[in-house]
């Protein structure tokens, strides 16, 4: 069994109003040191078995479904 931890984040070129709103909120709360906040998604995928194909498979599912390549990038770890 393999546990895959996937992080999907907005591409750097994409504006993140949610992140900007959070940053403004944190600064208002007194955390004046906070320069930037960007919000992404964390997805956990568990597979029945693990093989050398798991990485290829995870790339495929990220490319096809979990991330939109127009606006998002991803990275993952396999345990």
């Amino acid at each position: 069994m393999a546990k895959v931890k996937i992080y999907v984040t907005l591409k750097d070129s994409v504006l993140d109003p949610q992140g900007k709103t959070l940053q403004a909120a944190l600064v208002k709360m007194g955390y004046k040191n906070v320069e930037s906040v960007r919000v992404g998604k964390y997805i956990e995928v568990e597979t029945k078995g693990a093989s050398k194909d798991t990485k290829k498979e995870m790339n495929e599912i990220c490319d096809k479904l979990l991330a939109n390549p127009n606006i998002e990038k991803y990275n993952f770890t396999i345990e």
Partner: protein
Amino acid sequence: MIKFGVVTFPGSNCDRDCLWAVRDVMGEKAELVWHESKDIKKYDVIILPGGFSYGDYLRSGAIARFSKVMDAVQTFAAKKNKMVIGICNGFQILLEAGLLPGAMLHNKTQKFICKYVNLSVTNNDTAFTSECFKGQTLRIPIAHGEGNYFCDDKTLNSLIENDQVVFRYCDEQGKINEKTNPNGALYDIAGIINKKGNVMGMMPHPERAMKSELGSTDGNFIFKSMINHVKKCL
């Protein structure tokens, strides 16, 4: 006899309004198409309606694009004499499916926006806007949380060069500026078509602008254009 097919995905909720617009207002044949349908050849126009398909989970339209019917829609859209219109969630599905370029982000205001907007008809030489004059202002309502259209510079330049931008948010006089853009959409884009000109996506709801008693009749221009185009092709 022309026929419209309105797809119902799990979570679609504007399908019946689209049916009503085509059947009861325009007087043409239309029926609902289940998202598992594989055969849609008998239709002339496919409507992907608004709603919250698959709960908008992950990203709006991200899961609906893998519905069985979407394989058929890909084949359908490849035929120049067939038309596809994606409204709101339908537009999002077309983007996720790659039938139109770009993607939708959350509204810049981080709020769901539900109000009338004005659209400038940027290109009236399409199968969806032939009843309009260039620069005409249409008053049509929006209701969405993810209508912030985005694409990279290369794609935007291509869209503009190829006259693929159909509707842009504007004021009542047709003027386009930051104030008239409700959601932060790039280039104030409210609707675009594909290069072939037979697939259009728009965020506003023309099916909600069919009767004066309900606020606006400007949606008629779009449905009339589509019907005229299909009748011409037959």
